[in-house]
């Protein structure tokens, strides 16, 4: 046996599973992230939130008529009103920028979700939001809602987030270059009445914004396909697998 083989033998059973959020929790960064994401009072006359991308990518369109301000979040006034509290589903830090995946039951009867991010130079948190009615209705494309966004200027990576029916365990995103990103679903906050799961994942660096994700699929615990959507702008060749 060589020295190199001996050193390899010492670590042969090591399976590395990275968890950056755990590092941040240990460093007490994530609690301060939550505090940093707490929005200020809205200044509705200043809507130069350059990073705000409102994505309404849903199976059933939502009327954007209910605009009364009942919460202080950056998206209030531009999306369906919350029927209850806006809750954090998950939080973390990407490229040094704190973010939180938030969700709420909307007064229009659906669920809204999005990433609130806190870019250091920005005057207040901003991000992307989407709202959906998830009703499979026998059509899998109706049981998954998603958004993709990102901000290269702010150093924030492109990401995908979404809501999917409650029994989904994993979500798989097919990237245009052929690679696949998989992520586990996240349970809804206890106060959220809409029975859904959520997902959020950063996308591989370097993929162009207009062609990164082609299809998104959700799978149950046994691997069965529960939902599948072809991302707008992509052809039938990218269709969801059976």
């Amino acid at each position, binding site marked *: *046996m*060589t*020295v*190199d083989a*001996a*050193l390899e*033998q*010492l*670590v*042969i*059973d*090591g*399976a*590395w*599973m*990275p*968890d*950056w959020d*755990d*590092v*941040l929790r*240990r*460093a*007490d*960064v994530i609690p301060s992230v939550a505090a940093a994401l707490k929005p200020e009072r809205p200044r509705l006359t200043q809507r130069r939130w350059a990073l705000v991308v409102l994505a309404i990518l849903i199976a059933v369109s939502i009327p954007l008529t209910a605009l009364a301000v009942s919460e202080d979040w950056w998206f209030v006034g531009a999306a369906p009103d919350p029927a209850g509290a806006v809750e954090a589903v998950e939080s973390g*830090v*990407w*490229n*040094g*920028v704190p973010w939180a995946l938030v969700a709420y039951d909307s007064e229009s009867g659906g669920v809204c979700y999005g990433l609130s991010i806190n870019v250091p130079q920005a005057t207040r948190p901003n991000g992307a939001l989407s709202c959906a009615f998830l009703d499979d209705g026998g059509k899998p494309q109706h049981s998954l809602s998603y958004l993709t966004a990102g901000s290269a200027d702010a*150093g924030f990576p492109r990401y995908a987030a979404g809501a999917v029916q409650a029994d989904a365990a994993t979500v798989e995103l097919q990237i245009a270059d052929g690679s696949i990103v998989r992520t586990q679903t996240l349970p809804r906050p206890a106060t959220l009445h809409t029975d859904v799961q959520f997902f959020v994942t950063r996308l591989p660096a370097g993929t162009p914004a207009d062609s990164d994700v082609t299809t998104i699929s959700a799978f149950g615990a046994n691997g069965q396909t529960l939902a599948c959507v072809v991302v707008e702008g992509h052809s039938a060749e990218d269709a969801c697998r059976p």
Partner: protein
Amino acid sequence: MGAVGASLGEIEAVYRSRGEAFYKLALARTEQRDLARDAVQEGFARAIRSRDSFRREGSLEAWIARCVINAAHDLVARHDKPNPDAATAGACHARPDSDEWVREAVRRLPRRQREALFLRFYLDFDYITIAATLGVEVGTVSATLHAARAALSNEIREVPQ
């Protein structure tokens, strides 16, 4: 005066690109997967907490490696794992080709030799970075690595085939 301190993004970039190598370093040091994972997580957390003190006189990876090694050392001590720095009685019952035999051989190395060897092998550090991590002169790294390899090679060569 140049800027000091490391950003959260810089540390995250090291974690994402080099986390597995740091894990192997910690696994070789702690000999337990759970402790190794804890050492990496805690080492990076320590790096974040003290990131303002990073002087940029050496590489960020070297500085984080020091944090991970220290965390691994603390965890081993806390969990009453047999201290690899202490003299060992030898693995009397270990099979000569077993993991335990190899571990015993590595444990018998002086701490500095072992850490230099790990930094070179698992993190692929050059001599300058190893010196910065261990706080020694660059000129001593080559001799330290040579001694470590010679000692380990001798142990392995003694294995009956």
